[in-house]
């Protein structure tokens, strides 16, 4: 972890930022989370993997001389002079609920989808989801594709989605776009991933073809 003294010795450039209302002076190479810790403040909630894949550290960011407020991940946001950062609490979980096992066949997916996510076809194209996504995903397009039943294509757009729920927070129609994306990915695997190499091995195992011997040789 970043050591205060070694940073000072390195003579790294210090910048002034405000994080959750606290004025902090810290080296410019730190993330918003690291800067809080560096200044001696505690931060536990909204901290996770620290490498941008868990989606915990949702923050609002405003840069100096710019009135625009952006949503980002705190662990991926390097501090800059005059930057303001606010940590966001996590929203209530989405009300959408479904079980893959309850979709009886792949012919039924589209019908079920509109029952589970009725709001998805009501997208008003406000682009709030796209603007909020810290991964730059074309969320809105994904929702539109899913609503047209193009689940494989929709799911491909969400490869980098970390389920930070920022698009869920941003959506005025309560579509829960990230869950739409995940639904699209999951039905694609559930109904269409049928690898012959795996299935052949499973059959072999069932027929008892592959017993293992644990009395193997040791050198």
């Amino acid at each position: 972890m970043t050591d205060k003294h070694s940073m000072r010795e390195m003579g790294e450039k210090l910048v002034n930022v405000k994080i959750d209302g606290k004025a902090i002076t810290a080296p410019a190479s730190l993330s918003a989370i690291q800067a809080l810790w560096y200044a001696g403040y505690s931060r536990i909630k909204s901290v996770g993997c620290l490498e941008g894949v868990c989606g915990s550290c949702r923050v609002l960011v405003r840069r100096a001389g710019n009135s625009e407020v952006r949503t980002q991940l705190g662990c991926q946001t390097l501090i800059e002079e005059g930057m303001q950062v606010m940590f966001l609490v996590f929203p209530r979980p989405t009300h959408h609920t479904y079980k893959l096992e309850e979709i009886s066949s792949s012919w039924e997916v589209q019908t079920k989808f509109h029952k589970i996510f009725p709001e998805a076809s009501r997208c008003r194209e406000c682009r709030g989801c796209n603007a909020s996504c810290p991964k730059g995903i074309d969320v809105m397009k994904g929702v539109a594709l899913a609503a047209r039943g193009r689940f494989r294509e929709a799911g491909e757009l969400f490869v980098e989605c970390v389920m930070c729920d920022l698009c869920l927070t941003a959506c005025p129609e309560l579509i829960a776009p990230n869950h739409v994306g995940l639904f699209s990915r999951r039905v694609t695997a559930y109904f269409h991933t049928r690898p012959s190499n795996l299935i052949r091995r499973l059959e072999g195992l069932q027929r008892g073809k592959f017993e293992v011997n644990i009395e193997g040789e040791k050198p």
Partner: protein
Amino acid sequence: MTGISYSEALAHYQAAKSRDLKKSDMATDELLQAFHPDYREDSLVSLCVGPNQGDSCHRQLAELLQSDARIDEADLAGASIVQTDVLVIGGGGAGCAAALMAEQAGARVIMATKLRLGDSNTVMAEGGIQASIERGDTPQMHLDDSLKAGHYRGDPKLVAKMVMDAPDVIRWLIQQGMQFDLDEFGDLMTRRAGGTSADRVVYYRDYTGLEMMRALRESVRNSKIDVWDYSPVVELMSNESGHCAGAVISNLKDCSYVLIEAQTVILATGGIGRMHLNGFPTSNHFGATGDGLVLAYRLGAKLRDLDSFQYHPTGLAHPQHLAGTLITEGVRSAGAQLLNGLGERFVDELKTRDHVSAAILKECAEGRGVRVDENAVGVWLDTPGVERTNPGILAKRLPKLVELGNKCGINPVEMPLLVYPTLHYQNGGVVIDEHGQSTVPGLYCVGEVSGGIHGRNRIMGNALLEIISFGRRAGLQAAEMSHGRGHKKVTIGHLSKLRRELAVAGMPMEVKGPMLFPECAKFEKDADYEGFRRKKQ
């Protein structure tokens, strides 16, 4: 401050004509003895109390295993009590697999997680999952590879169960809605792990863990499992006959204690990376502070291999704020070479992780590393070399690596990255049987917190396999064993014994365990959590 300067090393890298492997002057055992951090003599102590008394253990871990508890009886006066059949502690891949199976078997399940559901090392896993599915590969070969890579210190009975489960684990994951990289005919693609004899790792890009966790989290969220987030466990509880019977939760939202009484408890708390053993950076999640080992040990569970940890060969060495970030073994599997500051290839990149790490540490110790500044030294991971032989592979199969390069201001297609070993995995852990049952009745341990599968060194892809294989096993068994008559009395009585033993052994009582959060987060100094700590007498 030895090493070759960055600019000089870059010139060597660019000028190098041949990439012939330099002949190694050391055999694996000798190399590990001399350079692997596990063998640093001053890092080991002998445990003074508990079921592993007399066993060798890493000094930093021993301090926590022999620490005082955070609570005593007085803290629990007035705490509310909740009852359930199965209590799962930890919300990573192992915890989710266990909880889903237990719920499916009809048990009432509470999942308590220190942070949020899915906050875990699972979500960060990149390389893939081992399953012998290719023609010419067999579960037997998988078993032999795993045991050999672990220096024959793993438990063959456990490994046998795991390798036989593997293909069905993949099927189960697909049924949870997890995608894998498929070839043009829809078959699973495979890559080879270091130290193994067949292409056996199935994967989804270098986002395998993220893809797995997304699917599992959604399955859990859509089930009847009651998820408690921000609810670290500070102590396990036991009944009148010593069975594990629940846990004390510290609710971080309102700083209160809650007692969860359960028929069976499944511990899935993960590993220890954030202890920064031997001062190493780590690839691990913020919550990987070894809590489960401390909790289980206090209740009397036997542990094993407490002196064996995995340092992943390719952690990012520079810049400092990203130091320790993992670069998947999949990059070496795709053909990337490791080169020292002289531009020389010094190790077979697909040897086992402990061997490759020790070889990198040797290069750096002997002055052939690339020196960036006083804090950072490393060796080159030749990503442009892979791209030359297989154009487009980085963007297509290793997008997370490209993204990491962006963050460092380096395009891995054109420039090599600097890497240095990073603390990655706890090889040992709680002793378990084939159902994940520990030596304490009613206490199951799955995933990284458990021990015995990986011996002294784990191969790529066996961790993601283990968490699902044993997670499912423990979930089923715990649900089945939760139909008992219930407990007469559930207490933290084991703590008086612990304190007596610590006092007799003359241990310092200042250290409190479990650690819960890394030191850098300043948890103990935070006024928000005042009510959570033991009151000063």
